């Protein structure tokens, strides 16, 4: 086979050729095995990776549901905003990207780092870095498209609160999920991810799951630079459910205007006692949720947000459900009802002496209005006689008082669908023992104070109106609520509020006496006789003055008493009352002085709408004014504040 010449030297060329030949074989076998391993043994794994390489899921955000009042007026909506986003998956050099964003778009480095380094955040989900980008910003992004394909401009929906501060505490606001919330197992189950924008506070938070809908997804084939080439599949987003609230925009506006026009602070609630629907809820000072909506992320924005959060007047506090105030004389309605039900006083015999006050131990507690003589229960309510109730209270004793007010729902959360409701404080031996270790024993003096809503009483206005609404409704205590209806979408059926009142057996005679008494406060020259309630609505109510500090020590406005007024209309007629309003004006002085007028206008607005004509002449001018002011907030106002985005 081989020529002799290959053998004639001392070394064996032929052998060496064979060695090379077999080395070649080894090489090919080794390669063959390796190809087999990749293409057969591990085929599925690589096939999956090849798929992942080229398929990207781009989320299509679902439009958040609107929030409307009960007449269909849109209170909270979405508006398109041009934002700048960065997609982590497309970042080739983190430092480069960060520097570019910080230097050119004024992005906060720290904030962005947190989101970039968040392990829970899917890398394909874009991070919002700047909202409402200016023309210059947009130009920069466009100019650097090739250099920084990971930075893009995108039109995204932005939450807009059309009436600014109006009903801010009820509506709530939106913001990014924070790390603490993500740790909450409930949140995890609901599928919230880092970077998600969710409702924080108010209806936005409580009904977030209904409002957020379901994001869609666009599955695209991308090339190696992440650029979409073709659509594989588009799953359309499902809009969130629109929520109809029980609010009435006009009534709410009047309620708010009552406080702002007089520079007052405090709270007011308007409720339908027949079902617990809340027509209006105000807390002043308030805040503009648009500040949160347009500042989900950005460095300068933090200032705007922080200004609200750190404001010493606590604008984000909802005084209607979180403020704790002594009720003052409004408490007397509860006392009267309890006293009658217990038989301490009876319809035939309810006379008690006023005495201008009462002596307890070595102190004399004054009746603030002087000596009324001797009154029956009707008179005592109409003229708000403190002395009467001091004596009634002592006859009842703290335990009975505690027992009855608890049945009326005091000292407990009403269950309203808003976050942060407080329980309040009501008189009880156990409470005094707990908070006053140096003087733990309940004394008569404490009972006396408790009898006219001072001392050991501190509750939020909503609690009070619920209790008294239940009484005037004859024992039906509804749960106050703001949710009326969630409109149907593909994802979810329509939802209504599940309304189950708590029933308390109260004698109709008691109810008649109490409601007549309240009617008399307004219509028989009682403590609210001079306020000017229109006779035709047959409103009844009760004034209250909550002491902030001992009268002798009052120096300035901040020491003035809080002014309360609670009212229902119509009363003392054959119909059940259809509206109840409670208002507290901080440092407003006498009940009739500051709060009763507010309540008057609120009820007047309600009835004006119902009758189709203004029942108070002032209402005409006021409404025009209010409508003008409303146009000062919302989108038009926003545009005045920021440069127009083309």
């Amino acid at each position, binding site marked *: 086979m081989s020529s002799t010449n290959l053998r004639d030297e*001392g070394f064996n*060329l032929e052998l060496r050729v064979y060695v090379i030949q077999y080395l070649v074989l080894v090489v090919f076998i080794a390669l063959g095995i*390796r190809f087999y391993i990749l293409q057969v043994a591990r085929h599925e794994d690589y096939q999956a990776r090849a798929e992942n390489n080229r398929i990207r899921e781009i989320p299509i955000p679902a439009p958040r549901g609107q929030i409307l009042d009960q007449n269909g007026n849109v209170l909270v909506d979405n508006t398109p905003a041009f934002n700048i986003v960065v997609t982590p998956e497309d970042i080739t050099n983190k430092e480069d990207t960060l520097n570019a964003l910080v230097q050119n778009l004024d992005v906060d480095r720290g904030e962005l780092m947190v989101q970039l380094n968040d392990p829970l955040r899917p890398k394909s989900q874009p991070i919002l870095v700047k909202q409402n980008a200016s023309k210059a910003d947009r130009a920069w992004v466009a100019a650097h498209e090739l250099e920084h394909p990971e930075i893009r401009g995108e039109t995204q929906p932005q939450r807009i609160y059309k009436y600014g501060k109006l009903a801010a505490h009820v509506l709530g606001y939106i913001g990014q999920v924070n790390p603490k919330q993500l740790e909450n197992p409930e949140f995890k189950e609901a599928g919230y991810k880092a970077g998600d924008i969710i409702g924080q506070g108010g209806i936005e938070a409580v009904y977030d799951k209904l409002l957020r809908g379901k994001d869609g997804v666009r599955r695209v084939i991308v090339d190696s630079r992440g650029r979409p080439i073709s659509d594989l599949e588009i799953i359309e987003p499902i809009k969130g459910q629109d929520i109809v609230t029980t609010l009435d925009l006009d009534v709410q506006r009047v309620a708010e205007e009552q406080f702002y026009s007089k520079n007052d602070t405090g709270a007011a609630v308007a409720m339908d006692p027949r079902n617990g629907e809340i027509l209006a809820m105000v807390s002043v000072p308030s805040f503009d949720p648009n500040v949160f909506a347009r500042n989900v992320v950005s460095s300068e924005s933090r200032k705007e947000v922080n200004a609200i959060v750190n404001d010493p007047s606590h604008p984000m506090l909802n005084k209607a459900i979180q403020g704790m105030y002594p009720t003052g004389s409004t408490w007397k309605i509860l006392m009267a009802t309890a006293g009658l039900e217990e038989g301490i006083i009876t319809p035939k015999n309810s006379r008690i002496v006023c005495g201008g006050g009462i002596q307890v131990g070595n102190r004399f507690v004054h009746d603030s209005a002087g000596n009324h003589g001797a009154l029956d229960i009707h008179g005592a309510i109409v003229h708000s006689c403190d002395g009467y109730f001091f004596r009634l209270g002592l006859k009842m004793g703290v335990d009975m008082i505690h027992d009855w007010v608890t049945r009326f729902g005091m000292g407990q959360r009403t269950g309203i669908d808003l976050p942060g409701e407080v329980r309040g404080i009501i008189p009880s031996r156990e409470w005094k023992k707990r908070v006053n270790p140096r003087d733990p024993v309940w004394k008569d003096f404490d009972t006396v104070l408790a009898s006219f809503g001072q001392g050991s009483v501190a509750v939020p206005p909503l609690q009070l109106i619920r209790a008294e609404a239940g009484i005037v409704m004859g024992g039906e205590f509804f749960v106050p609520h703001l949710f009326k209806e969630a409109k149907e979408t593909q994802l979810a059926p329509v939802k209504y509020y599940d309304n189950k009142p708590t029933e308390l057996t109260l004698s109709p005679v008691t109810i008649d006496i109490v409601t007549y008494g309240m009617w008399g406060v307004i219509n028989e020259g009682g403590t609210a006789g001079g306020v000017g309630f229109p006779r035709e609505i047959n409103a009844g109510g009760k004034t209250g003055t909550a002491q902030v500090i001992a009268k002798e020590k009052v120096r300035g406005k901040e020491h003035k008493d809080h002014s309360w007024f609670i009212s229902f209309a119509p009363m003392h007629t054959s119909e059940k009352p259809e509206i109840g309003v409670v208002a507290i004006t901080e440092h407003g002085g006498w009940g009739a002085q500051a709060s009763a007028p507010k309540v008057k206008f609120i009820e007047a607005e309600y009835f004006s709408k119902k009758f189709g004509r203004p029942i108070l002449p002032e209402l005409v001018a006021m409404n025009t004014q209010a409508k003008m002011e409303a146009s000062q907030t919302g989108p038009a106002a926003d545009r005045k504040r920021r440069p127009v985005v083309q």
Partner: protein
Amino acid sequence: MVDLNTRKLKDVDWLLLFAPIALTAFGCLAISSSAPDSGFVKKQVISLGIGVAIAVGIMFTDYRKIVLNVAPFFYAAVLMLLVLVLIAGTQINGNKAWLRVAGFSLQPSEFAKAATILMLARHLAHVRQASLSIRDILIMAAIVLPPIILVYAEHDTGTTLTFGAILATFYFLGGMRKLLLAAGAVALVVGLVVVFPHLKRYQIERINVIIHPEEADPRGFGYQTIQSVIAVGSGGVLGKGIGHGTQGKLGFLPFAWTDFIGAVVAEETGLVGILFMMVLYLLLIWRMIAVAKSSRDRAGSMMVMGFVGLITFHILCNLGMVVAIMPIMGIPLPLMSYGGTAVMAVFIGVGLALSVRMRRFVN
């Protein structure tokens, strides 16, 4: 010099000619898929035509005359071209290794490999002793040195290593004592260990990707290897079909028409296609080895075996890189990677082998 004898036509080893043509054609299919509308296929076909012409031309020439007389001029000319590249060359992808001539890109380093093989074979044709003397060793190294230096100056690591492989092949074939060979192997390993820390970052990353594939940053220098492996693995047994490869097509696999053509073949024609390709290569190599064994003189066998070693080294490095058992070194897959000069260089070897075979009988 050229003697055309019809009797000898029957003596042509047709398989030896067919295999490389088939391989180049197969390569064109893969190129057409991974670099469509690029005109690459056209250029490759032209190079194939030129290559076949060269091979046929050489076949009818007496290889002895080429080795003894032409080789030194060829070698000198190539060295001059390499110098020219350094001065006036075109840079493609970080390597300044091309000369643009009349609309074509010429890569002189490919010819340099052929020229070096010829020169080494020429030197060993004269040697008669049992094993290589020190003088031989040094001379052979001296032959390889100039091209290595010039190629290294082009920053072409892969080609630099190739020359080392050529030299090693000839040392082995030329009869270097086993002891020396062993010592050489050890020296090589020691050299690698010493050099390793001084490697550039991208080179280290490329090696790391092989050893620790999980750690590799998919956007870093290991990217190509990872993408290649994904492309290969996802091809399965039957592949996704010519033109239906997603990795190569969509830009996930860089240089899918040159260095990573093997991945495109694997992705689109599967294991079946790969095995078919390997069979063609083995056919080519086996026929060349047969020629080497039947050669009538040392020069012929050594020269042909030199080409065998060259082709095998290329296949090992390139396919090894495609399947991530070797780091990326920028070595093309013979005949299949897009590159006209390389195709022609292989056909020079094929032509020489055909010539050796034709003249294997001592007449």
